[in-house]
């Protein structure tokens, strides 16, 4: 699963040692299998083709955000602004689209292509501001993206002023809520973004730098890698992924309004971490994130099928995240020792 090592390191006899080294990849996968088995037994409606499509649709927006976040976390940084940036960019694209008479927003209608381009540019700009703060000024990403979270919320508030917008450009509408045959477009886009993320991380020079910077920043520096450039790039990539998720999300939900992405910050971080990408950087990848997304998706969806107290659901998700964090840190230690 992890592109960084399982494929290239020889297994070298010692099976147990190898297994321990792979804990971060195996544990999430095992969790996924167990959850699927449990829910399949508990509810006949869970293991149906329809429901699989449901799960895929439910995790799509999170998936797109999580791709960018995977880059950031691999570099041992964090981006807390992803959901807020998604919301802001989603609102931007609606802001540049002609809205219905009933919507009382002082918006600025443009042709669809221009609206999309401007919104994308907006996401790049937000990412660039974060990157500037982190790499040039030297603000820790944790703090800088917290500020950006607030700035994103501010942009949302300024643009919609408590109103709700509905219209988005036609291509966005199609990708966000249309489908080809039985397959929703948004699922296709999510798979595409995941695939691109995977290819970039595993097969390009830039991807290698991401792993190296996350693995040992000082060593990357001493190898003549432009560490600041890599960090700036991952923060911008994260913002652009969030932006895409935001635009499609707005079409997917059918409206653009304040605070509608609030759950996605925790979901995206959970997906990456539950999947086994190391919070200390340098290990993991999109393969891990895919498994993390499925664990989260299956859990959310499955809990609905077994008709569990919906308040308990929240607690269960929290506990699962805690468990994943424990495994994450523990796997790091085992591997350092192995």
């Amino acid at each position, binding site marked *: 699963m992890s592109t960084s090592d399982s494929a290239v390191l020889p297994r*070298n006899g010692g099976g147990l040692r190898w297994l321990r080294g792979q804990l971060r990849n195996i544990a999430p996968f095992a969790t996924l299998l167990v959850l699927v088995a449990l829910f399949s037994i508990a509810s006949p409606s869970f293991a149906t083709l329809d429901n699989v499509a449901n799960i895929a649709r439910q995790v799509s927006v999170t998936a797109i955000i999580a791709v960018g976040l995977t880059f950031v976390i691999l570099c041992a940084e964090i981006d807390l602004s992803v959901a807020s940036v998604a919301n802001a960019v989603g609102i931007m694209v609606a802001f540049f689209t002609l809205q219905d008479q009933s919507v009382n927003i002082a918006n600025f209608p443009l042709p669809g292509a221009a609206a999309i381009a401007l919104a994308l540019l907006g996401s790049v700009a937000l990412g660039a501001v974060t990157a500037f703060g982190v790499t040039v000024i030297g603000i820790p990403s944790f703090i800088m993206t917290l500020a950006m979270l607030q700035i994103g919320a501010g942009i949302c508030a300024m643009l919609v002023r408590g109103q709700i917008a509905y219209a988005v450009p036609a291509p966005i509408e199609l990708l966000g809520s249309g489908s080809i045959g039985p397959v929703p477009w948004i699922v296709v886009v999510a798979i595409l973004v995941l695939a691109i993320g995977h290819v970039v991380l595993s097969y390009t020079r830039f991807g*290698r730098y991401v792993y190296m910077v996350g*693995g040992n920043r000082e060593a990357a520096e001493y*190898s*003549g890698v432009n560490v600041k450039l890599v960090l700036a790039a991952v923060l911008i990539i994260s913002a652009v992924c969030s932006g895409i998720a935001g635009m499609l999300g707005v079409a997917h939900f059918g409206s653009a309004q304040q605070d509608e992405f609030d759950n996605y910050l925790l979901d995206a971080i959970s997906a990456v971490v539950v999947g086994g990408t190391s919070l200390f950087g340098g290990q993991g990848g999109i393969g891990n994130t895919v498994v993390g997304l499925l664990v989260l998706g299956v859990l959310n969806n499955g809990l609905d099928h077994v008709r569990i107290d919906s308040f308990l659901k929240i607690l269960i998700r929290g506990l699962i995240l805690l468990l994943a964090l424990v495994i994450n840190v523990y796997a790091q230690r085992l591997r350092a020792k192995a």
Partner: protein
Amino acid sequence: MQSGAPLLELRGISKSFGGVTALSSVDFTLEAGEIHGLVGENGAGKSTLMKIIAGVHTSFEGEMRIAGQPARHRSARSARDAGIGMVHQELSVVPELSVAENVMLGVQPVNRLGLVDWPGMMRRARALLAELGIDVDPRVPIGSLPLGLQQLVEIARVLSSGARIVILDEPTSALSPPEVEVLFGLLRRVRDSGRSIVFISHFLEDVLAICDRVTCFRNGRLIETAPVAAIDKGWIITRMIGAGHEELEAGYTGEIRLDSRPGAPVVLACEAASGPGFREVSLEARAGEVLGIYGSMGAGQLDLARALFGRTALSGGRLSLDGRPLALRNTAAARRAGIAFVPESRRSMLFAQEPVYRNVSISILGRISRLWVKPAVEREIAQRQVESLGIRPPSVQRRLGTLSGGNQQKVALAKWLTHLPRVLVLSEPTRGMDVGAKEEVVRIVRGLREQGIAMLVVSTEPETVLSLADRILVMKRGEVCEEFAGGTVSKDRLLAAA
């Protein structure tokens, strides 16, 4: 030494990592009140044996007895409780914590409320450091100190922990000669108090000077143990490497000829450069010449080297490359300009979790690929380096962290040898290498010199500079205080100048 059971006794110890045998049926005894030297080539298994004793490796074959009692540690912690303390080859200080906290790590004094007693801790740390003759402020973060002092502080921590068995894995590699003297005084006092020390080192002179008995390792086997009075360097080298290499380490006690090349074109020049740790340094690195910069710990030569690679910014003065002004905004700019650098600490140079080939290829990735990485090409290039540097085991797929310390150091050098730079700056290039490998470095550096590369060798070890340099600058308190160009120089004169 007393009769009866030895303090520590190991029987039939074997240990393998996956398919690699690191130790095979080793019998080793440590008597009470002795300093026991361990020598052997890089990868011979010295650190592995010590990690078994210190409870770091818990799965192995064979048995261990402490004072006659069978012992089997479950963890490093239980080994510590049994009175075994170890200073690892790789420093394991916590850079962000203060010196005092590092000294007292795990044994912080607490007050009645159960909180850390800060004033008490500072007082005790200060007293301890003073007693050991280490002159540092216990309040500063340890990461801000030069490597040598960090090493001394870490040794101080283990010595003061009251361990009966103290294992020092290459403790002197980062120390300057006066610091080594301080350490030796300390070790003798510890021994005379009846405690025992295992001393691993590649500095055979140090081993002969401080140890009571010496054990040689080769390829995971214990070859022979002998009292130090009965042996000499040649004896050790024969057992470490085999017969016929006794001339290695012939020593740099006599006069060394310098053949500087005053006529060669200047590649890298530095005019009145100042920066953190050094002031007003002017120097010229010439094509095909090795410029040695010697100074004791903290004299500024290591800081200068970092600045020449763009790691730290100059606060004054100018650099030029081939006569053209050179501004180094960051290390990437230095790499592009054709400057390469191997820092003194391998932890800050290598990626322990990545396979060897990625460690080798990282600095030339831009040359072998534009967009897509080409692992096959990387592996092939790395394989050539691994073979030509004699890195063992010779597999480029292994995770770097599983190599022995000296072999990791060779990988750090290998990184820059695939695409030859214009200027190669080596900071402590032979630290942690066995005598054979040191000779190998000398050979490599000579080879690079023939190819017209301008080299700077920066070190706190006179031997390193003497064995490699064609011209020598001596630094003191951040400034260049003497130059030896042409004629001869000796270790004594070098030490006197610094």
